């Protein structure tokens, strides 16, 4: 999809809003996909390629930051990349979410077993 410079795609806006509503400081890829599925009422999770491409794009735009989670928190599973909204990202999420219905807090950082 072609875009105007400085504009966000619907998925990118959706990610920012989901991150904002979660109320958590950080979130990870699968947790985000799960939250977006729950919020949209969809049956399927966002595809890997689409999700991580959008996250990378938002990071390039300075709306998100990311880091690897601490080794101590990993507990035998692959380490997650943790994302956080920047100040600019939070403002973009607020602008995008203005006028929309409030969605209950999600399970962005919920821990699968």
């Amino acid at each position, binding site marked *: 999809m072609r875009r105007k410079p400085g504009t966000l795609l619907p998925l990118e806006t959706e990610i920012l809003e989901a991150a904002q509503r979660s109320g958590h400081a950080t979130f990870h890829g*699968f947790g985000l996909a799960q939250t977006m599925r729950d919020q949209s009422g969809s049956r399927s999770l966002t595809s890997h390629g689409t999700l991580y*491409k959008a996250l990378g794009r938002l990071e390039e735009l300075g709306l998100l930051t990311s880091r690897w989670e601490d080794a101590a928190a990993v507990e035998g599973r692959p380490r997650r990349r943790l994302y956080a909204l920047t100040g600019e990202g939070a403002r973009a999420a607020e602008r995008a979410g203005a006028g929309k219905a409030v969605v209950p807090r999600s399970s962005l950082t919920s821990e699968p077993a």
Partner: protein
Amino acid sequence: MTPERMAELVAGWVRLYTRDLPASVAQRRVEEIDADLHDHIAHERARGISERRIARGIASRMVRGLAADAAWRGHQAKVAARLSTREETMKVSKAVYRSAVRIALGVALILTIPLVATLVSDGEGWSVGDFIAGGVFLAAIGIVIELAVKRVGNLALAIGIAVVGVLAGVAGEADDAPGLVLLGIVLIVSACALGIRARTRPAQHSQ
């Protein structure tokens, strides 16, 4: 097919489309998808979803994201190429700067000889104009030598410079022109240095 087998297939696909990308970029994507797949399987199992459905869900996420994966790879490859071009430009700039410093130092060093001679002699010696002309001439020779050195194996040029140096020295001796003799010596020394570098470079490159 089990979810784990399907996850392996997805991981294989990720490794395939991240091939030849910068290691840090590729590794990040591989690890991020690995973590996602692990979380996906664990979460769906905890919800009591059947193994078959979990595997189908993973496959669906991969297939629906193929176009985005290809676009992401294209973008990353472009970014990497741009960075590589910038590094190349910086390398060239550094090389030019080093050459300029070498030439300036060489010219200054050589000109100290007539300068000292002028200072110790009684009014005889080089005028300011001579120093300027000598500096310009030496700098031009330095540039030619620097360019020649870049061309590995250019022994013919080294021999040519040496011949000109010998001729300058002989002519200077005949005309009693110490400046010309000095120039001849400089040219001969430069030709020797160039010849040595031309012969040693191929051996260094082959290591």
